[in-house]
């Protein structure tokens, strides 16, 4: 969804749909990072905000494989709706939620086993204050080592996490879709502002994405490596 957060700002801000509580109603989940999200956080119930969307594509399911969702930080917002639809369908899934510390973990919004589905939520914190001690990618490797099932990965989170998830998926030959974030202007594929490099050339996050097959993304050399 492309949201006009404040009349002071030129650019709208892109957000994933985190939930659809009822027909005609959507939820977004965001972290205050800059002037756009700060302005949005100051809004009151009943305020009118201009929203364009839904724009772009969505994750694609493969019922023959166990979905493993990898959420880093606010990336949880990009995976919550997928987890909900899996839970609503009564299917199994594993959700890996990572953050720097326990206070920043966003496992709360995910549907749990109590909601009817069989969604297993595992957490990881960089400082070891909750769940697996280490990154969510470390937890992912441990999870993949332990599971006996064919897996399909879905990931959303910071660039470094996406890069690492893509590497793990490639190494283990596991299909993997990632939802990307980029600064965005038009939201409809017109301005070519939010492109990412892929094996097919530059593709827009707004219209061609935000979901991409991780195997088709091209990652630049990490600076200093």
């Amino acid at each position: 969804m492309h949201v006009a957060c404040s009349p002071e700002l030129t650019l709208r801000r892109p957000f994933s749909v985190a939930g659809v509580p009822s027909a005609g109603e959507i939820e977004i989940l965001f972290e205050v990072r800059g002037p756009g999200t700060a302005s949005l956080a100051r809004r009151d119930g009943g305020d009118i905000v201009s929203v364009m969307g839904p724009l772009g594509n969505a994750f694609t399911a493969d019922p023959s494989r166990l979905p493993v969702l990898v959420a880093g930080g606010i990336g949880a917002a990009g995976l919550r709706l997928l987890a909900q639809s899996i839970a609503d369908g009564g299917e199994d899934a594993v959700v890996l939620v990572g953050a720097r510390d326990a206070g920043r973990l966003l496992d709360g919004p995910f549907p749990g086993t109590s909601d009817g589905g069989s969604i297993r939520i595992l957490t990881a914190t960089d400082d070891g204050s909750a769940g697996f001690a280490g990154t969510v990618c470390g937890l992912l490797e441990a999870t993949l080592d332990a599971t006996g099932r064919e897996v399909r990965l879905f990931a959303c989170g910071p660039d470094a996490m996406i890069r690492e998830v893509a590497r793990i998926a490639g190494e283990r030959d596991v299909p993997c879709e990632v939802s990307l974030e980029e600064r965005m202007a038009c939201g409809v594929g017109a301005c070519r502002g939010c492109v990412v490099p892929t094996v097919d050339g530059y593709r827009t996050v707004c219209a061609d994405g935000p979901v991409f097959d991780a195997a088709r993304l091209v990652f630049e050399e990490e600076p200093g490596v």
Partner: protein
Amino acid sequence: MSDLTTTIAGLRMTTPVVLASGAVGYGHEYEGLIDFAAVGAIVTKTITPAPRPGNAPPRICETAGGMLNSIGLENVGLAAFLESELPRAAGLGAPVVASVAGETDEGFGELTAAVGERDEVAAVELNISCPNVERRATPLWADATRVADIVVAARARTGKPILVKLSPNVTDAVPVALAAESAGADALVVANTMPGMRIDTERMAPALGNTTGGLSGAALLPINLALVWKVAGAVSIPIVGSGGVRAVDDALEYLLAGAVAVQVGTALFTEPDTPRRIADGLRRRMKEEGVADVAEYVGRAREYAT
């Protein structure tokens, strides 16, 4: 009553609100979001002979009162434009102005010939002012002699109206404007974006992948409005004002300064309904003031020229 019809050298537009090149892609991306009935013309993404991948990301960055972009003329190339994008743009209901950029004078000429012969193209805009691809010591847009050569080359290849989009990044825009006019341009678009940059303090690196980009949006309005004011006093061909038009009063300022129409670009990102709002706002204002023809506003503020 309240006639917004505007004609630029035979290019007949139902409103003086034109969609700016770059912001609007090939037009069809905005289908269902922009009300094309309120649009005087669509200027499509600048086309080069071969497809261009564009500059390395990040390509955009917000700044107070606007944004920076360094797209780098990413486009599908002439063949794909003629084959698929142009027919789709032409189906939107507004005349299509094809924006082109060649590497050489003859390159501009050939592109102009190729787009100009198509029925779907109502006019050609020569983009001599993209700040994101120029590498010469004296940029093309500041070189009146080269601009004249380009316009001559294009003029020889089409009978359709030719618009030349100038750059605000010049000490004096008048010599370039006069050169374009005497070389056969039918109208001038004043003007493109202004070079600028921001630095990402977290990464301690330029915010844009290409280091610098073009500033657009509200912050550009006073700069380009002053250029329109100056150029309108020097040339006799029509001027299309461009830069920071977000609302009806912004458009009106350009008209009062001497432009016959305006281009809207960055404002579409904030609000795709901007053309409809401006067109309706102009009609409302004209009705209130008993103005029958929008042309009556053109240059009205010039009587105060000092």
